[in-house]
C-alpha cells in the first residue's frame, strides 16, 4: 500500500516489519536500531520528524517519544524555542513504564505545546508529510507519524487533546489511539488543555498500538485524574471478530471533502458487509464541540503557560510562536472577570451539552464511525486561517470533549477512519479496529 511507496522512496527494504513480528522476536533489535538511526540521519533534515536523538546505545523495541513528554536527562522542548535547552529532570510515568522493554530512540517534533492541527509548525523546522512532501503531516503529534511511516521507529508515544494522535496518523497512514481520559497517566506531559490532555500510543498497525497500551495504563498517584483499572494485555483476543455483533453509528450532516466522503462511504459499505448494524443520527449539537474546545483550551492553556516568564524556565516569552501567543492572549482575555461569564462559563456549559448528547448516542451503539479528518492534508503553502485549521478538528474533537476512546486507522492514501468506543472499552475498540484494518 501507500506505506510501501514511502519505503520505496527511502529505498529501505524490509524496514516496515509488522509489530507482531517485532514483538514476537526473531529480529535483531540492536542492529535494527542502528539501521533506523541511519534512516533518521538520512531523512530527518528534510522531514524534521525528530528534535533529539538518543546518543546512547541500547536494545529494545524502538520507541519515539513526543517532545512534550518528559524523558529524564533528555531535552524536552515541546517543540518551542522557549524550552530549547530545557532538560527534563524526571521521567513521565508512561516513559518509566516503557523503559524496560523499549529503547527510546529520540524525541519527536510537533506543533509547539501541541497547539496546532497541521503538524508542520515546530520551532525547529517544518515537518513534512512523507507520502507527499508538499503537504502537512497532520498534528500535533506529526513527528511520530512521520517516523513510523518511514521506519525511523516502530512504536511511538504521542499526546492527544483534541485529535493530536489521530490526525497525523490519518494523514501519514499509521495507527493512533486516544485512550479514555483517566486510563493513562498524564504525569510528565506538558500542559495544553489539562482537562482533555491524554497520552496515546501510535504504531504502524493496530497490534502495535494495543501492545504499547498494555504497558502504560493504570492508576498513578502523580495524576489525580487516573482511574483504577485492572491491568490487561490488549493484544489478547485481538483477532476475534466483533463487527458482526456490533451497532455502529454514523452521522448525517458532517461536511466532508469529496475524496474523504467517497472513502467513508466505501468503508461503511465494507463494514456493513462484515455484518455490522449501521445506524444513522444527526450530528446536531455535537457541532458545538469545536468552539467549546477552543474556548476551554485557550483558558487552561493561558493558565498553564504563566510559568514561562523567563525566570525559572527557558527563554523570554517573546520567542513563542504566533499561534501559541494567540492562544495565551485569547485565554487571558476570556478568563478576565469581566468576560468570564460570557466566554469561560459558556464553554463549560458547552462541554456538558456535548457530553450529554454523546452519552445518549453511546447508550444505543457500540461504536461511532467517522473519517478521522474531514479533508485531505492541505498543502504546506496553503495558509489556513486559524478558524479553518480549528474546523479540521470537527471529527476528532467530540470524542475528546466527552472523554471517549477513539482510534484512527488508515484506509486510503492520506485518509484514515476514526472509530469511537465506550469509556474504558479499549479492548473492544481495538478488536473492531483490527477487523477493519486491511
Amino acid at each position, binding site marked *: 500500500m501507500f506505506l510501501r511507496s514511502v519505503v520505496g522512496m527511502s529505498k529501505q527494504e524490509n524496514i516496515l516489519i509488522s509489530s507482531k513480528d517485532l514483538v514476537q522476536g526473531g529480529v535483531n533489535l540492536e542492529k535494527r536500531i542502528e539501521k533506523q538511526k541511519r534512516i533518521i540521519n538520512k531523512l530527518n533534515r528534510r522531514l524534521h520528524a525528530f528534535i533529539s536523538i538518543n546518543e546512547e546505545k541500547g536494545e529494545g523495541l524502538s520507541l519515539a517519544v513526543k517532545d*512534550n*513528554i*518528559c524523558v529524564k536527562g533528555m531535552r*524536552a522542548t*515541546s517543540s518551542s524555542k522557549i*524550552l530549547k535547552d*530545557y532538560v*527534563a*529532570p*524526571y521521567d*513521565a510515568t508512561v516513559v518509566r513504564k516503557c523503559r524496560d522493554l523499549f529503547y527510546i530512540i529520540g524525541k519527536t517534533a510537533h506543533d509547539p505545546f501541541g497547539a496546532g492541527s497541521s503538524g508542520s509548525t515546530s520551532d525547529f523546522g517544518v515537518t513534512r508529510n512523507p507520502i507527499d512532501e508538499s503537504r502537512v503531516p497532520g498534528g500535533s503529534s506529526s513527528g511520530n507519524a512521520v517516523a513510523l511511516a518511514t521506519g525511523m521507529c516502530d512504536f511511538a508515544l504521542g499526546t492527544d487533546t483534541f485529535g493530536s494522535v489521530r490526525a497525523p496518523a490519518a494523514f501519514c497512514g499509521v495507527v493512533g489511539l486516544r485512550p479514555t481520559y483517566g486510563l493513562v497517566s*498524564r*504525569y*510528565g*506531559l*506538558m*500542559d495544553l*488543555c*489539562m*482537562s482533555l490532555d491524554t497520552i496515546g500510543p501510535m504504531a504502524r498497525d493496530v497490534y502495535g498500538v494495543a501492545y504499547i497500551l498494555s504497558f502504560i495504563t493504570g492508576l498513578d*498517584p*502523580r*495524576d*489525580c*485524574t487516573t482511574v483504577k483499572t485492572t491491568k490487561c494485555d490488549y493484544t489478547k483476543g485481538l483477532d476475534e471478530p466483533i463487527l458482526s455483533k456490533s451497532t455502529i453509528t454514523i452521522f448525517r450532516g458532517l461536511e466532508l471533502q469529496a475524496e474523504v466522503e467517497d472513502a467513508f462511504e466505501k468503508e461503511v459499505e465494507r463494514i456493513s458487509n462484515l455484518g455490522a448494524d449501521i445506524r444513522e443520527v444527526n450530528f446536531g449539537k455535537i457541532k458545538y464541540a469545536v468552539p467549546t474546545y477552543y474556548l476551554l483550551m485557550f*483558558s*487552561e492553556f*493561558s*493558565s498553564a503557560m*504563566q*510559568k514561562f*516568564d523567563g*525566570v*525559572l*524556565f527557558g527563554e523570554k516569552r517573546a520567542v513563542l510562536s504566533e499561534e501559541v501567543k494567540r492562544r495565551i492572549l485569547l485565554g*487571558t482575555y476570556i*478568563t*478576565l*472577570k469581566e468576560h468570564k461569564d460570557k466566554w*469561560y462559563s459558556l464553554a463549560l456549559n458547552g462541554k456538558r451539552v456535548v457530553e450529554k448528547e454523546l452519552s445518549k448516542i453511546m447508550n444505543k451503539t457500540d461504536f461511532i464511525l467517522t473519517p478521522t479528518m474531514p479533508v485531505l492534508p492541505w498543502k504546506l503553502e496553503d495558509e489556513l486561517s486559524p478558524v479553518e485549521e480549528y474546523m479540521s478538528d470537527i471529527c476528532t474533537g467530540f470524542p475528546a470533549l466527552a472523554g471517549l476512546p477513539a482510534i484512527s486507522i488508515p484506509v486510503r492514501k492520506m485518509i484514515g477512519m476514526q472509530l469511537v468506543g465506550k469509556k474504558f472499552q479499549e479492548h473492544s475498540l481495538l478488536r473492531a479496529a483490527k477487523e477493519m484494518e486491511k
Partner: protein
Amino acid sequence: MKIGLEVHVYLNTKSKMYCSCPVTEALPNTNICPVCTGQPGAKPMATNMKAVEEALIIGKALNCKMLDRVTTMRKHYFYPDLPNNYQRTSSPFAVGGEFMGIRIREVHWEEDAGRYDPKKKTIDLNRSGVPLVEIVTEPDMKSPKQAKEFLLELRHLLSYLRVGRGIFKVDTNISLGSERVEIKNINSIKGVETALAYEIKRQTKLLNQSKKVKRETRHFDETTGKTVSLREKETVEDYRFIADPDLPPVDIKEIRVYLPKPLEEVKKNLEGLGLKKEETNVLTTDWKLTELFFSLSKKLPPQFVANWIKTELMGELHYRSISFSDVEISANGIAQLLADMYHGKITRAIAKRKLRAMLDNKQEIEMRSISKKEVTRVIREVIESHPKEVKKYLKGKTQLLNFLVGETLKRLDYCVEPKEVIVLLKNELESYKLP
C-alpha cells in the same frame, strides 16, 4: 474605624499540600521536587488530607457553617517566588463564623509560595507548596488593641485544638471612614498592632490636613515600625480564577474530625473551680493537657494540680523547648506521682526526678534513702570545690546559698528535700566563717 484581618496559619503536616516533599527547615532548595518547582509536565498529587483535616477543625472551632464540596482554584499573578505564576487556593470550605465577637467571613486552604530575596536575587522553593489556611474576618475590629487580642486568642485556640504550627502571617485592612488601606505580610502579632497604630496616625494626619487617604496596599517594615506604599489600587486585582483541571473537587462532607470541648466552656469550668485566669490559660494550651488536669483533679485538689502543672510540668517542658503535644506520657503515671507527692509518700524533689525520667523516657533510677552523714559529706565536697562562691557568700552575698544548695542536690540526685540541705549547709558554712 473598621479593621479586618486575613490570618494565614501554617498547618502541622509532615509533607506539602500537593507533593510528598517534607515541610521541615532545610538548606535552600533541598526540599523540592518537580511538582513544587512547577516543572513543565508535573501534576499536583491529591490534596494532603492531613492538611484538610486540620483546616476543618479550625473552620468548625470558629463556629462556621461548613460546605460540602471544595474546589481547588488557580489564582494567577506573577511573582518570582511562585514557580507556576499561579497559586492553588481552595474555594471557601467554611463561611459565616464568629469568634471573640468578630464575624468570620470565610476560611480556605492554600499552598504557600517560595522565598524570594530581591536584594540577593535568590529564590528558595523549600516553602513552595507548604499547606496553609487563611481565615478572613469581617472588618469588625475597632482598635489595634482589639486586633491584637483577637490574634492572641486565635493563637491560643489553635494551640488548644492542637492544630497549626503556631506561626502566623497576617494581612490587615483598615478604614477610618473613607478609603480602605491594606497592609500585607506582617509576621508577628505585635507587628499587626504596631502597623495599625502607625496607619491610624498617618491617616489621621492626612485627614486633619484635609488630604485624601488613597485606596492602596502598603508594606509593613518590621524594623522601623512604619508602613510604605506598595501599590495603588485603581481597580480591583483580577486573578483570573479557574478551577484547577488537574485536581478533582474534595468532598469534605464525609470527613470526620475530632473536636474537643469548646474552649470557652472549658475556661468557664476552670474558673468555676476557683482558678486564676493565668492558670486557666496554661491549662488550656492543649486540650489533652486540659483533659489531664480534669482527670487528676478528680482525686486531688484542683489548685494543687494546677500549681504543679504550671510550675513543675510546664517548667520542665520549657527547659526542653518542647510543648505538651510533643510528649507521650502516661496519665496514670502522672496521677500516681502526684498522689504520692500529695500524701507525702515522696518528696517534691523526688517527684521532680520521676517526672524528668518520664519526659526523657529514661529508666527510673532506684531511689536511695540518704543519711544525714552522707548529705554532710557531699555538702563539704561542694564547699571545697567552690571556694570563690563560698568566699562571696561569707562576705554577705547570701543569694549564693541557692546556688550551693542546687549543686548539692544535683550531686545527691535530688533525693533529699532542699529544706534539709539548707539547714545543714548553713551549719557547715558557719564553721568557715572567720572569727
